[in-house]
């Protein structure tokens, strides 16, 4: 029968039209600035620099090895390495970046910098509202703006951060054990020459 399908279609659209006023479930639109979906844990957008402790300059994990700068496909990272060394959060003297800039407008959120970093110093942030009115000043983020605490990292990526923390703690423990062993060996070595010297003389 001619027009049967048309009538069916009209009924369907009428149902949609009226239904959208009756049941809220039909409207799947999330009205963004006012409403937001909960952030999923795997979300990532733009890298940030992790620091331990309270002071971002003291606790910065980055040792300015320049690997991320070299690996970055769009070349949006620029680092200047320091001449001197300073003590990092674990008390070890390390180089540090005097300048660490990332260009927001160039970054393509590929996460390669994060994957190549041997020090777990750079991680992906979830903040996606980076638009700004100043296209020259506000789009080049400096070291200070990029720095975010390890607590923040734990908050946005709990699972990942826990794994990183565990690994770092293990490394730190190993290092401490090693340095302890080394210290003991040193102490033993310091004590030994006298003994051996006396032994040798005794043999002779």
């Amino acid at each position, binding site marked *: 029968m*001619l027009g049967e399908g048309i009538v069916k*279609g009209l009924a369907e*659209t009428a149902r*949609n*039209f009226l239904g959208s006023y009756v049941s809220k479930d039909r*409207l799947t639109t999330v*009205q963004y600035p006012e409403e937001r979906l909960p952030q999923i844990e795997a979300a990532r957008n733009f890298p940030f620099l992790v620091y331990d402790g309270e002071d971002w300059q003291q606790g910065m994990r980055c040792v300015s090895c320049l690997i991320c700068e070299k690996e970055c496909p769009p070349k949006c990272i620029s680092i200047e390495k320091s001449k001197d060394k300073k003590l990092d959060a674990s008390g070890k003297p390390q180089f540090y970046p005097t300048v660490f800039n990332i260009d927001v407008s160039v970054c393509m959120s590929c996460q390669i910098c994060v994957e190549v970093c041997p020090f777990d110093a750079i991680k992906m942030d979830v903040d996606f509202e980076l638009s700004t009115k100043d296209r020259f000043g506000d789009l080049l983020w400096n070291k200070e703006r990029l720095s975010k605490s390890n607590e923040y990292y734990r908050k946005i990526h709990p699972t990942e951060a826990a794994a990183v923390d565990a690994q770092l703690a293990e490394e730190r423990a190993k290092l401490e054990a090693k340095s302890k062993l080394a210290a003991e060996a040193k102490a033993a070595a310091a004590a030994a020459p006298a003994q051996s010297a006396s032994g040798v003389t005794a043999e002779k």
Partner: protein
Amino acid sequence: MTPETIDRIFIIWKHWLLSYAPAGVQPLFSALLSVVPVLAVFPLLFAITTVLERKGLGRIQNRYGPNRVGPYGFFQPIADGVKSLTKEDVVPRTADQVVHFLAPLLLVAAAFLAYAVLPVGRNMVVANLNAGVLFFFAVGSLVELAVFMAGWSSRNKYSLLGAMRAIAQMISYEVPLVLASVVVIMAAGSLSTVTIVNMQASYTGIWPHWFVFTPWGFVGFVLFMIAATAEANRSPFDLPEGESEIVAGYYIEYSGFKFALFFLGEYLGMFATSGMAITLFLGGWAAPFSFLTWVPSYFWFFAKLLVLIAGFIWVRGTLPRLRMDQLMNFAWKFMLPMTLLNIFVAGAWHFMAAGSVRWLVCAVLIFAPSVLLALGLEKGKKKIAARTYRFAE
């Protein structure tokens, strides 16, 4: 104020304003006072319709539609207007500059001219021509010229294709459009829109004498509305601008306010043909029941117009675009025979005695051929069989 005064309020105001003009310029001033409201009200209706349409389509697709500018998004047309006014007006270097410029103006002018014969209320018509219906269709066909001017002058293959499609479609559907209204002219015995409405503005009991409540009137109305949809280039007959095929059809090379003018012209054309359908079949400004005649006549005209616009939006939200051959087949193999038959039925209705026999005979005379014609449309169609994958066994 009595209901009569409210009904006549615009006429009273006009005469009051007119009394201030010197006698020499009174005819001119009178014409101006009739035309300016039309130029103000219908573009306003266009603005309201765009936002209603976007919201309606949104709801049909389970979206919100525009809801950011002003309360419930109802200031959206103002934002759109500002946007189209501040946009750059790009004209192709190889375009025919003069024709390219004139096309949107002609379209809007032609659309506005059609309102001259629409009675929007009791004694409220710009010009009561005694060949009003004829004038309406004559002016309506100017739109085709404007569309072709736009398509030709743009020097773009898509706009030319769109214009060709538009011409083919509009000429094909103009035939059933005019023939569908012939039945009303036969019944009313007049080409004057005012006379046609006056004939429908009487009641039996509470029921009005609208032409749509007769078998030939109902079929005529349905056919008229289908043809009007095609004339207005609206979905499902929006092939001339089919975005997915020829980008935007004949107005691909128009930007900024010229594009807005095309948009305006298209909607004005839609309102005008809807207004004509109301005048011819739905009793014009007449109230739907005898006990509602105290409501001002212009209210009924615009209420009916809004109902028809809602119908247009509903259909647009439902039906996909036709193919060119389907469009043409439908026009020439279904619409045209049905309108011709309808004229015959209207004649039969006129010469038969009133009663249920007349209803039965006319209903059968319409229903049986429509089924046959529908079968005829189906006949050439290839049945789509389930696809078989030989290589995937």
